[in-house]
């Protein structure tokens, strides 16, 4: 994953850990991981910390509260609006009329 002029993986992981400390307790933050900053051309894409937030309203609130840094340790922080659940029937796709899908 690491290419010339790209941050070393341990610094990216430190930035992700810092993001978890800052935001991990907020119930609207559903996932924090490391992805690619897609705002730049693919060939220049670099690792970024992604903060997955449950809704647009929660994202606006976190920004309003100034809790969402743009950069941590020189690593970009990207906000992603998404919600996740175990791949069970609660709202995902078509579900049989009884039972549970794992």
């Amino acid at each position: 994953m690491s290419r010339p002029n790209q941050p070393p993986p341990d610094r990216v992981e430190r930035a992700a850990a810092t993001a978890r400390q800052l935001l991990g307790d907020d119930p609207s933050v559903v996932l924090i991981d490391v992805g690619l900053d897609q705002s730049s051309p693919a060939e220049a894409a670099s690792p970024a910390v992604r903060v997955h937030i449950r809704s647009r309203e929660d994202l606006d609130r976190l920004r309003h509260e100034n809790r969402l840094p743009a950069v941590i340790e020189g690593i970009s922080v990207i906000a992603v609006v998404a919600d996740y659940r175990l791949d069970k029937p609660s709202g995902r796709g078509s579900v049989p009329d009884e039972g549970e899908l794992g």
Partner: protein
Amino acid sequence: VDSGPPSTPYRVIHGALAYLRTPGREINLIDVTGTPDAPVVRFHVERALVPEELAERSLEPLPDRIDGVARKIVVGRYRLQRFGPPRSANQRRVDPLVGGVSISRSNQVSAGTLGGLVHDSASGDPLLLSNFHVLVARWGVRPGTQQIVQPGRLDGGGLGDAVGSYLRHGMDDHLDAAIASVDGSRRLVAQQYGIGAYRGRTEPFLGQHVVKQGRSTQRTQGVVTGINGQAVFNYGSVRWRIREIVSIDPVPGSPIVSGPGDSGSFWLDAQTHTAVALHFAGSDQPERALAIDLGPVCEALAVDVPA
């Protein structure tokens, strides 16, 4: 008014009902066959119990005659034939067992996906790997007390389709993964249904193209867009942190990457077919699959993917 003795079928069924209600006998249906002169009462059972199982359950063998009528035991499993879409091939019983097919615990009508064959790191014994919420689901279940069936019960599987029993899970290490022992009733091979053989394990990386076979959405392909993730999910009433999450988006032009019932699938590197991650969650908007890096899963459960 004395209507006389009940007819033979009625009398036999009435006499046999006590066995139908006995816990542990796994009797699905009792009926009468034969001729009016030589009736036979039939017990349709999930499977024929061997003497040792009867002894474990403190049960006597069924008597040879019920109220003077001969008795016969047949294997018969029945379900309501609901109107619905035809089942995919990987939602049916398969032999030998391969990854990517329907599986569930025996005590709940549910269906997830069998990830595949792994080996115990110490003993080399073959084991089944899937999610905690597929094979176990409840906290505090003791090893060996929960049978695993293929296909899953939602797909018509029953106790006669048992392939093993729950052994241990990775939730203490914040990994939604569990393994089951195999009972030897079916052969187990390191293949994915509709994909082919998988060999060994590789770490996920950003941009990696992956493929999986799942119980519900079948074979889909995706691209790894996130690694080293952590998130919290509800397991029953317990909110539990899951780590080592890999995010997988659909390949361009593909509308779907995963769905309910795919939990437990192995994501494989699309080129090498080495195992990468264990599917467990997802979202519709945006369409995205979440899986768990198989490296920490194998370490926590002390298992290896066949090389």
